[in-house]
């Protein structure tokens, strides 16, 4: 759907390899090359241990690739920074700060004035529908709400690209569904470049424009599946034949089903 117009490349990954030195050397990634375009929602799926989390950590700057380059907005990635926002699988909201303080944290790091911080935080709270919870502490929130606060916290610094590592992995199925809807709604309003790593194929198809399937270790891009489904994507979409066809294709690449 978006491929007709030439779009700016936000993230360029070239021939990246990563080796874990340990008791046994593990080649987590080998020859990984991909590009992410502006305002594209990219999902990455793959079998367990295929290196998708390692890949995301490299893009974020937590790890340095053994070989290859990663360019974000043209400049090489060397360390974590606010241009590449990261949402974790575990609970990463700061439990000793209120929701408001959490949201303001990134702006505080940037040196923004208190008034500006408060304004941005207020807008985000409205966006995620948690009005009234400004002074609440994460311990008082449900897991889903807490995760939304984390997403909003990352959005507060207006990053170029949003990296999400199985953000809803620790939530129960029902909450996960709700959160996926929320994320979709947020993305539509705030249009950002997103790279989502997930093991949930349904989630990938529901949210993404394009799904990359990683090969088993050592990981590289095995296949690319476009998701030309129209937005918005309500829940019923998961029952449609187009959805199933895309799912079948992805499952075939993962070796879970026969390609039709």
């Amino acid at each position, binding site marked *: 759907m978006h491929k007709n117009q030439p779009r700016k490349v936000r993230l360029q990954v070239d021939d990246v390899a990563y080796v874990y030195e340990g008791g046994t050397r593990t080649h987590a990634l080998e020859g990984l090359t991909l590009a992410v375009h502006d305002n594209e929602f990219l999902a990455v799926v793959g079998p367990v241990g295929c290196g998708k989390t390692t890949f995301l950590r490299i893009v*974020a*700057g*937590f790890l340095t690739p053994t070989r290859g380059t990663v360019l974000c907005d043209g400049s090489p990635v060397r*360390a*974590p*920074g*606010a241009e*590449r*926002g*990261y949402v*974790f699988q*575990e*609970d*990463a909201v*700061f*439990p*000793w*700060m209120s929701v408001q303080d959490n949201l303001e*944290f*990134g702006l*505080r*790091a*940037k040196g923004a004035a208190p008034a500006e911080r408060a304004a941005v935080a207020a807008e985000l709270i409205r966006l995620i529908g948690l009005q009234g919870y400004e002074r609440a*502490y*994460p*311990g*008082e*929130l*449900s*897991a889903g709400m*807490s995760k939304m606060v*984390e997403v909003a*916290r*990352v959005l507060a*610094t207006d990053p170029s690209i949003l990296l999400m590592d199985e953000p809803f992995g620790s939530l129960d199925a029902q909450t996960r569904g709700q959160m996926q809807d929320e994320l979709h709604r947020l993305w539509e309003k705030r249009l950002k470049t997103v790279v989502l790593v997930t093991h949930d194929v349904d989630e990938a198809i529901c949210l993404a424009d394009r799904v990359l399937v990683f090969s088993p270790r050592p990981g590289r891009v095995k296949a690319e599946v476009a998701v030309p489904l129209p937005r918005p994507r309500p829940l019923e979409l998961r029952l449609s034949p187009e959805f199933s066809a895309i799912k079948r294709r992805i499952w075939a690449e993962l070796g879970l089903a026969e390609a039709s």
Partner: protein
Amino acid sequence: MRSPGRRRVVLGCVSVAVLVCFYTLVSNVGRLVDAELLPEAFARLSRPDLLPPTQDIFKAVVSLVTGELPPMEGHHAHPSGHVSQLVEQHVTLQGALLASVLRVLFGVAVGGPLGILTGFVLGWNRTADDYLHPIYVLLRSIPSLAFITYVMLWLGHGEAHLLIPIVYAVFTTVVIPTYHGVRDLAEVYVRAARSLGAGGRLLFARVILPAASPAVLSALRYSLIIAWMTTVGVEMLMGDDGIGHLLVGGGLWSSRLQIGVDPAVIIVGILALAAAGYAMDAAARIVSDRVTFWARRRRAW
């Protein structure tokens, strides 16, 4: 701990009451019953100088608090040499307790921050940790009280050589929990903060410090007990005042070995000590709970 409830309070009180009554009985047996009627082992056990009768304990408390010897009431009632010596030296229970409390507080006030700082440095800076950790492990293996013999040679017989072991004991108690608090607990938070653009001072003050605070505060709370132990020890060895000094009968090092110790005084001293320690721990717990309220929250679902 199981949740407090009426059953807990009742059983606790009953248990204390039962034991006190039982003890009063046993310790007074010598006075109530003729010695020949008792089995020998029992008679030996219930001698008033081994098991002070409850009344004597009360009398000792009174003497030590008021600083006066009780009036003579006949041959049962003369105070022990221990009590007399203490009263002669104008040692009171509350005075001794105060002196010890001050030492404990000093030890925590100085040793605590030093230990926290060291724990932070070692936990945060992997290089420093690599170089310094073995040295630390070596130094903390030496019991704090053992140092006093050496320190005394440098600093003489003043207050410093009493306080240094206390400070050292608190220091070594606090370093390792702080170290683990910084290293093990804060990882995902540090990563999150970094990817939000935080660095340096903001990262330290707003992320690392709070994340490690539960471990640090609980270490400080535990160090109170250690500080008490060391304080009592140094006072027993070399102090001029304080509860430890009271427990061994006052006087200088050389004379301590000579007087007979009065168990009533010991029991009084121990009760006072435990009460003070418990009170300080309770205060520390309240403060610590208030500051780290967020660490114990359970999720809504």
